[in-house]
Every structure is written in C-alpha cells, then in structure tokens.
C-alpha cells in the first residue's frame, strides 16, 4: 500500500564513482570487488553467488531508470541478484512467515512493511541477522524513527530502512479559496502550525462553515487519528515492549480529536483507499488529506490531469510518519555476508535517492544523508502546484519522534482505524467507540 508513485524533478545518473567507491569499501571484505579495484577480477575463481531478494509492491530496484540490481551486479561480477516480487503485501507476508517459521525457503534478503515490523522485531527477531555491525551501517544515517523501529528489544538491528512516509498536509487550494482560507503554502501552514487541535478545531471548523456544499475538510478521520498518534514519542507500546495504548494520554487525545472532527462534519465517512475515496479526489470533495510522501502519487492518479495545479503541499502541524519498509537478512540464508553487503548498499544515500528519483517509484528515502542529494533536495511536484516536496518531507522526516513499536502494533492500528470508522459511519459516540475498540484489541492480542 505505501509503495507508489512520486514524480521527482530530475532523474539523472547517480554519481557512479561515489557509488562504486562506497560499494567496494563495504563489500570489499566480503567478496565482490576485491582489493578496491572495483572490477571484481576474482569472479572466475569463486563462481557465481545468487542472492534472492524477496519484496512486494514497488521497491523499484529493478525499475527502468533505477536498475540498481544491474548496477550492483556490474560492480560485483560474482553476484547474481534475483528479485522475488509479490505484488500483494498480504500474500507476500503469508508466504514469508511460513518460510521463516519452517527455517527454510526464505530468500537471502526479505523486505517488510512497517506494519509487520512489530512482529518482525519481537516474535521473529531471532530469525534475522544483526545488521548493526555491517560495515557502513551507522545509526546516524537514518531518520531516528526509522532506526528505532527496525531494532529488536535486545538491541540487534533486524532491518535497515528503505523508504519512509514523512507527513505533510496536501490541500485543495481551489476549495480553500472558496472557503475564504489562504492558499499559499506558508500562510496555510501558519494556520495550524504546531497544533493538531488548531488543525481540526480552528481551521477545520472555519472551513466547514464556509465550505462549498458536499465537501469535507478532511478525506478521512482514520488518517487524522493515525497522524496525530504518529506525532507522539510514545504510541501503543513503551520501550520495554509493554502495551500502553489503553492508558497513553496522547492516544486518548488523538481519539478525542478524531471524534471532534467527525462531530463537526469534517469527514465524509469513507474508508481510505476505497473506490469512493479515490473518486473523492477526482470530484474535489476533500479540502485536505494528511499526506505521507507516497500519498502524493494517489492524489496525482485519483485527481486526474484536469486537477493539475489544484492541490498544494504545506507542512503538517506536527511531524509524523506513516508507512515505509525495511530490508532484512534471515539467518537461514547461505550467503549472509553477501546479502548484508547488498542490503547496506541498497540503503545507502545514493541508492535511496536514485529510487526516489525514478519515475513511477518515488519512495522517499529514510537515509537522512540522501536529503542533501540534489535529486531529493531539489525535488518538486509539478502536479501539486510545483511544491518543493523534497524540502518539505526532508524537514519533516528528521523531526518525527522515535517512538518504539511492539508486537501487535499493526493489529492495534487496524482496530483503532475501525473504531474511528465506527464514529464516522455509524455515528457511534467517541466513548462507546473507544470501549468497543479496547475490547476488540484485547480479543485480537490474546491467544
């Protein structure tokens, strides 16, 4: 789901020299480019090692314009990379967890969506190698939240971050104008700066008062709730792995805020990613959507060419994130060192920037050193009023609090989202919906 299209500005060659140099530094100890020659002269001697990379949706490594696997194989003539891609994440997860449980059948590298990392870093942690000591890997390279959520409780680094979903607010300037609100990104961001409460209770109510008929301030209450929770340094679990979703005041506050948005008629009551939700963009039904970097692609696709220039991007009230993935190396693999070197290389700034700059991929880097790459820092989105998306999302990424996640994070998130939808669709009161959600989470996390 969180892997889609972003259209970056310039897509040009990676600085190949830098990439080659870095890759050899890292992989030199392992195999590949021997003694820094970058040529891989010993390929004939060692024979070819095949690395299978299991992933889902669009990671873009093999996409036209990125061609990262081809590049890596060129740098390491003795490595052959085979991508084992499943378009559907749920199907991918079903197969992968079976392989991990069985202790055989997993690929040398396995990718995971953030929603699975709760299980991957707890119940499954022992099935993966520690990536923290792989040459070239350093905590400082990643957005703090990305590094924190890829770590197991024991401190081993189970996954290295590929992309991240830092959030901004995408807004429909046409509807803002119609409601008498400012339309320039800076002025818009100022309306709600620093406060989700101002976003919902000041700007949202203001919009709804003067709104064109049949339009809503927000696309979804669930999206709002998730973003508000994501702004907290403590979310559903504390750092010891204890579930705190029931008692954490910031979760409760987010719930109340979502309830207020629903009560004020700011949401249409549609599930995100449903067909009617998509149609809402084409019909200019929503004034805002809280927008992880990958969400821009959905707006571009769903709003359609006739709405080019209608949408714009402003900084969110508080930094938050949603989505993104990790690469891991299962212990059952036969070429662990080579696989680790590949994972390190793929998550280097140059490669993540290249993936971001690839048309039809556009996953936003989680490696903060990529943010100074002109491909990222200079990125604008022509459809979204030429917004400087590279700047906005880079700035947001580094301010996201490094909240810990726990075993059932994905399950809790799903249940919470359903609870918000109950308020939106069945007009359940916030208190009743909260109680129903709490008992549902208890049921879903027992057994």
């Amino acid at each position, binding site marked *: 789901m969180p892997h889609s299209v972003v259209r970056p500005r310039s897509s040009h060659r990676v600085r190949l020299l830098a990439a080659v140099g870095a890759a050899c530094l890292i992989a030199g100890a392992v195999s590949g480019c021997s003694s820094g020659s970058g040529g891989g002269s010993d390929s004939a001697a060692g024979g070819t090692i095949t690395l299978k990379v299991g992933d889902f949706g669009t990671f873009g490594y093999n996409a036209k314009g990125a061609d990262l696997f081809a590049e890596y194989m060129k740098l390491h003539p003795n490595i052959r990379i085979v991508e084992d891609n499943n378009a559907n994440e749920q199907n991918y997860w079903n197969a992968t967890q079976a392989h991990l449980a069985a202790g055989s059948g997993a690929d040398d590298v396995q990718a995971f969506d953030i929603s699975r990392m709760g299980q991957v870093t707890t119940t499954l942690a022992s099935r993966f190698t520690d990536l923290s000591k792989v040459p070239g890997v350093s905590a400082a390279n990643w957005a703090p939240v990305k590094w924190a959520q890829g770590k197991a409780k024991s401190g081993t680094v189970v996954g290295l971050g590929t992309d991240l979903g830092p959030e901004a607010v995408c807004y429909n300037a046409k509807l803002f104008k119609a409601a008498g609100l400012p339309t320039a990104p800076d002025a818009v961001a100022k309306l709600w700066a620093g406060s989700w409460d101002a976003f919902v209770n000041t700007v949202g109510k203001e919009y709804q008062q003067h709104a064109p008929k049949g339009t809503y301030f927000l696309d979804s209450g669930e999206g709002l709730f998730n973003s508000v929770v994501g702004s907290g340094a403590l979310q559903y679990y504390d750092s010891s792995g204890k579930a705190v979703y029931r008692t954490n005041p910031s979760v409760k506050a987010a719930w109340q805020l979502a309830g207020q948005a629903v009560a004020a008629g700011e949401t249409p009551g549609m599930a995100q990613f449903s067909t009617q939700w998509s149609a809402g963009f084409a019909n200019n039904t929503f004034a805002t959507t809280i927008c992880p970097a990958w969400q821009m692609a959905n707006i571009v696709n769903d709003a359609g060419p006739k709405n080019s220039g209608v949408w714009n991007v402003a900084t969110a009230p508080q930094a938050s994130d949603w989505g993104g993935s990790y690469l891991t190396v299962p212990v059952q693999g036969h070429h662990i060192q080579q696989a680790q070197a590949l994972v390190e290389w793929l998550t280097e700034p140059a490669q993540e920037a290249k993936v971001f700059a690839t048309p039809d991929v556009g996953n936003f880097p989680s490696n903060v050193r990529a943010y100074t790459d002109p491909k990222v820092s200079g990125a604008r989105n022509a459809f979204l009023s030429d917004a400087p998306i590279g700047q906005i999302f880079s700035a947001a990424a580094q301010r996201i609090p490094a909240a810990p996640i726990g075993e059932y994070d994905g399950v809790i998130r799903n249940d919470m989202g359903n609870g918000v939808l109950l308020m939106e*669709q069945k007009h359940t009161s916030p208190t009743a919906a909260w109680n129903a959600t709490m008992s549902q989470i208890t049921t879903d996390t027992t057994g």
Partner: protein
Amino acid sequence: MLRCGTRFPFPTVTKGLPVSTSTTAPHHRVPPPAPAPVPTAAQRRRSLLHRLDVKGTPYLLVTPFFLFFAAFGLFPLIYTGWVSLHSVSTLTPNQMTWNGVGNYTMLVHDQVFWKSLRNTVTIGLLSAVPQLLAALGLAHLLNYRLRGQLFLRVALLTPYATSVAAAALIFQFVFQQNDAGFANWALHLFGLGPVAWESGTWSSQLAVATIVMWRWTGYNTLIYLAAMQAVPGDLYEAAALDGTSRWQQFRHVTIPSLRPTILFTVIVSAIGSLQLFGEPYLFGGSGQGINGGPDNQYSTLALYVYRLAFNSEHLGRAAAVAWVIFFIAVVVGALNAVLVRRLRASA
C-alpha cells in the same frame, strides 16, 4: 467415487487368466461335471493370485485417492483439531502450549466470531435462495427450443469462468457509496437516495451476495438444465393430454423430477457459503478486506479464520474457528443424508 468401485468391471482384470467365469462366485458351488484333478502347486498359486487379484485389485486401485486424501485431507483436518487445543502463534508454529478448550470458550465472548457466524448464514441465504430460484427459472426457459441456444448457455456460464478478483473489482464500482456508482445511479432513476453500500450491514451483505449470485447462477442453471433434459418426454405428453398448462407442468412434472438435483444444489450452495471468503475479502479492498468492514458487517467465518491466522497470527484460535466451520458442514451433511433418505422413502 464409491459407485465406481462397486461397478468396477472385474472381467477385464481377469482377462488372460485360465478360469474365465470366475467372477460369479456361486458357480463354484456347482459340482464340476468330471472328477476334478488334484491341482498342482502352480495351479494353486495361480488361483491364489487370481483370488488376490479379484479381491485386492479394487482396493489397490482406490488406494492412491485415499493416500492423497489421508495426506492432504484427513491429516490436516486432525492436525487442525490438535492445533485448536493449543495456544500457538502462526509465526512460531512449533512452540505450542496446551490450552485445552480455551480457544473454543474464548469464542463465546468473541464478537467478531458471532458477527461472522451470523453474516455467513445471512449472506448464504441472501445469495443462495434467489440464486437457485433464478437458476430454476432460467433453466426452464432454456429448456424450450430457442434460437442461439448454445450462445445463451455459454453466456450463462461466463460469470462462473470469471475470476472472483475481477468480479469483486467490478462490483466495488457498482456499489460505490456516492452517486457515481451504478447501483446508486439505478436507485436514483426510481427517485431513491444513494445508499452507503459498504458501510451498511444489510446493504454490504446484499452487495457481497450479489457477487456470489452473479458468479454462480449460471452454473446452477446448467445443472438444472441437464436434469430437466433427463426428464422423460412422455411425462410431459401425458400431462399435456390431461390438459395441464405450462405452469402446471413445471410445478407437477419438472420440479418433482428435479428434487434430487435441487437438493444437491442446495447442499453445494450451503457448503459454498460456509467457505465464502474471496468475495467479501476483495469487496472490502486493500483497507477493509481483512476485517470485512470496520464493524465486521460483511465478515464471514472463513474470512475470520484468515484474519486470525495471518493478521493477528493466532494459529490456535484460527484452527478453532476452522473446526467450528467443519462441525457446521458435518451438520449440513447429516441433514442432507436424512433428507435424501426421506425423499427416497417418499418416492
């Protein structure tokens, strides 16, 4: 399957053996016309082989099926039962903790389970009843001499040949909640307001049932049609001579002749409903498929098994729900057996 076994043409197996009339056992009792010569060792061995052949071959021939059934049917069934008595995560299936009937007693307070059970029944009824009635009517119409008969029959079967995924995608558009959806557009023609199909309980179940109906009506029509064509023509002639109308013929000749077929389709539909998974899962889309709607308004038992096993990773609890489904299927099967016996007795 079983009928095949008993009807197995033994003579072909015994071909080439010296004794040719062996398959009819009573013949052995008839004393041979001439004093039998004492059988030689070779003859005795042959006759033993022969008897083994006659008695054993059928079993040998059905063995592969039962071996596969044991490996891929019976073992998983029993193992699922065993798993259902444990607390076990899908992620670590080898670490099982004994839980007795804990997973079953937990179902008592599990709201999603009860909703799914109720939905399985209601969606089953919503889809099966209109579907079978429509199939019966369609088959009756197709039983007349029509132009383009073959085309019509093939057309009827096309939905059945379509993948669930494609059908569900189309119906997602049909049942959009705003007025862009086809269903709401049609309602609008009759002056009715738009329905929020996916979020309502009955509306979403009706939508899911429609997908099922759309896919299976043609299939059942063809089964009914085949059965109708097996009804002897002289029954209709006799009825016509008695001056009955078409409708009376349908009611008093066609329907009674079709009774076993109707029973068969009812049972197959009932078991199909118990396994209903793809339609609700895909109707919900990437966001709500796994839940069967935020209020589980179109979740089914099979969907709940999936959610438990592969989303919240509770393999033991998923196994318990799977066994509940199996239990219901057994009850349905038993009901079927009773009905068949009644039907035979009354016939």
